[in-house]
């Protein structure tokens, strides 16, 4: 029973990791940009959720209606204003710029919100749970998992069924040819980042409801996002969900054996997958 519980809770945790990772996976897929500031952008979204829900006195999940467009606009501006200038044949400049962005975000948040731990108050949903035999499934983790599946399904649909998705794929395949066909590369990249940060907004608000956060915790969340992307295989959005779930279950099973092995077990499984399948479980991209 303990093992079933560990696997079920691990799967639900995987939903959270997939949410952390979806934005990363999207922007890496479209423009080969490794965003070191992703974890801090998640924390930024959590703080935006906090400000919106306290100022307007609304439920944090309702606040998403504002946080998502704000983050998307921020993403578009960030990409067109800063990150587009760093993209080129060299991977290093965007890496360094996003690293700097991460430092600026952390210290900016510290300056505005102080180091106090904050939490989004979501009321009864935080502690309510569904009893299935001896298993207790929290509504919040279930909702997070459902959101994560829905978002990934939505991204997948957008990628393969819409004109925007076609533009993303075309630009990702050959930037110069896409440009010749009348796609404005800078604009397409801006839209990709906007979409990525919209997903990040959801991840941030869920993180804020689930646990308390302060300006410095972003970096710790980044590594799980990266691992989920790599386990799932680069460029495959469903793979990212699978990667998140694999990571969540391995951590949970590791913790069942010994709590000290929780994070370690995730890293070990990640390394094992890299060793056996260097391109991840379901790669779509060379």
């Amino acid at each position, binding site marked *: 029973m*303990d093992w079933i*519980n*560990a696997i079920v*809770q*691990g799967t639900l*945790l995987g939903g*959270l*990791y997939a949410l952390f990772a979806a934005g990363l996976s999207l922007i890496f897929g479209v423009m080969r940009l490794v965003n070191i500031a992703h974890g801090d952008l998640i924390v930024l979204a959590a703080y935006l959720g906090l400000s919106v829900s306290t100022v307007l006195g609304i439920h944090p999940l309702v606040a998403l209606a504002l946080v998502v467009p704000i983050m998307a606009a921020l993403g578009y501006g960030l990409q067109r204003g800063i990150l587009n200038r760093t993209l080129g044949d060299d991977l290093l400049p965007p890496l360094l710029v996003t690293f700097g962005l991460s430092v600026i975000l952390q*210290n900016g948040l*510290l300056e505005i919100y*102080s*180091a*106090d*731990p*904050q*939490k989004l*108050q979501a009321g009864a949903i*935080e*502690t*309510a*749970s569904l*009893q299935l035999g001896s298993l*207790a*499934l*929290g*509504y*919040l*983790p279930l909702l997070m998992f459902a959101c994560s599946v829905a978002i990934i399904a939505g991204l997948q649909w957008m990628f393969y069924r819409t004109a925007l998705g076609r533009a993303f794929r075309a630009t990702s395949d050959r930037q110069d040819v896409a440009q010749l066909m009348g796609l404005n590369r800078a604009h397409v990249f801006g839209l990709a980042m906007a979409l990525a940060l919209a997903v990040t907004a959801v991840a941030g608000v869920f993180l804020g409801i*689930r*646990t*308390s*956060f*302060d300006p*410095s*915790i972003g970096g*710790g969340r980044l590594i*799980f996002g990266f691992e989920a992307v790599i386990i799932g295989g680069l460029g495959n959005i469903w793979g990212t969900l699978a990667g998140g779930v694999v990571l*969540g279950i391995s*951590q*949970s099973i590791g*913790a*069942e054996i*010994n*709590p*000290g092995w*929780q*994070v*370690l077990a995730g890293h070990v499984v990640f390394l094992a997958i890299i060793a056996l399948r260097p391109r991840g479980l379901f790669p779509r991209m060379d």
Partner: protein
Amino acid sequence: MKYLNPSRRHFMTGTAAMLAAPAILRATRAYAQTPVLRVGHVSPRTGPLAGFAEADDYVLQAISERFAGGIQNNGKTWAVEIISKDSQSNPNRAAEVAADLILRDEVDIIVAASTPDTVNPVSDQAEINEVPCVTTDCPWQPYFFGRGGNPAQGFTNTYHFFWGLEDVIGAFLDMWGQTGVAKIAGGLFPNDADGNAWGDAENGLPKPLAAAGYSLTDPGRYQPLSDDFSNQIAAFKAAGCEIVTGNMIPPDFATFWAQAAQQGFTPKIVTIGKALLFPSVIESLGERGNGLSSEVWWSPNHPFASSLTGASSRELAEGYTAATGRPWTQPIGFKHALFEVVADVIARAQDLEDSGAIVEAIAATSLATIVGPVDWSVGPVKNVTKTPLVAGQWQREGDKFDLKIVANTAQPSIPLTGTMQLL
């Protein structure tokens, strides 16, 4: 291009000035009217530990005003300059700024506070460089044993005042004992300096808890910033734990506490070190913050007063609330006391030019501070002295939470302000 080809004359004047500079600079201090004593201060102003240092500005401002007229030593007035540096909550950075203070700013005394991550690296730098050092705000076991201290020898230049794990265990047992709950406890200890010390089988919680008749379920050390505690919760449920204790950081506690509710685990007492110290953390937990308990190192109700300003504990705490609009926190008293000790040492030292004499003065301290008596002639080991510790519970009062002192058997001089209530 001009600068790349200096003329011979430029080169000579520049070199001469550089060679002469140290001689001239050294002379200035000897001829100064009022000699200056520099105090280096390292504290985590930013980063995850910043809550410990949030009162720094308030405390340092009051101290600087007090020091403005200088301090009398052997009939001579010394100006005191405090140089404060940020450890960014990072032990490597703490060591770096401590070395900077010692080697570049040439401080005469170095002080530090707030958790082993700040106190230990600063003390180690001071010990190596033979600079007198006073620290606080970190239980003495992680300070002493964490630095490889040998109780027979101790350290030469570094001194520490705070309480120890034996005090925290005593205060917790005192608090739990009066409620009559089943003696079945669950332990949550992270894999960090504090968690390993608290959970240590020999020197930590397990042994005294067993001696007092408690069974402790300790699933093992978890990594800080864990996202999932369902396995620990399952283990506690299986063992029928009514008490949860340990030492956690606030985000981990929030994750644990929400998951405990989701999975139907309802302990009667939750006493956690570190995570539940600050009112801001309790506020962030909302309704579920009510009734959590923690150790109390200092509170406005402590019957002590400052040896520097004469202010009582209540006046110091209320002054902070008035100045910043924020609720009082426990480190305020200790940060103030740290500078009380410094002022006392500066006044008493035989020869302020000699670091050995300053160390002797520190060792001979016997001072009634705002956090209780500081006297290194009494202590569990050399270089360490202990301040009183009690236990308290956060109870809702109107729309705010107040930390009520509910257990004081070991320190009857600190009055009780409430009675323990079960969750």
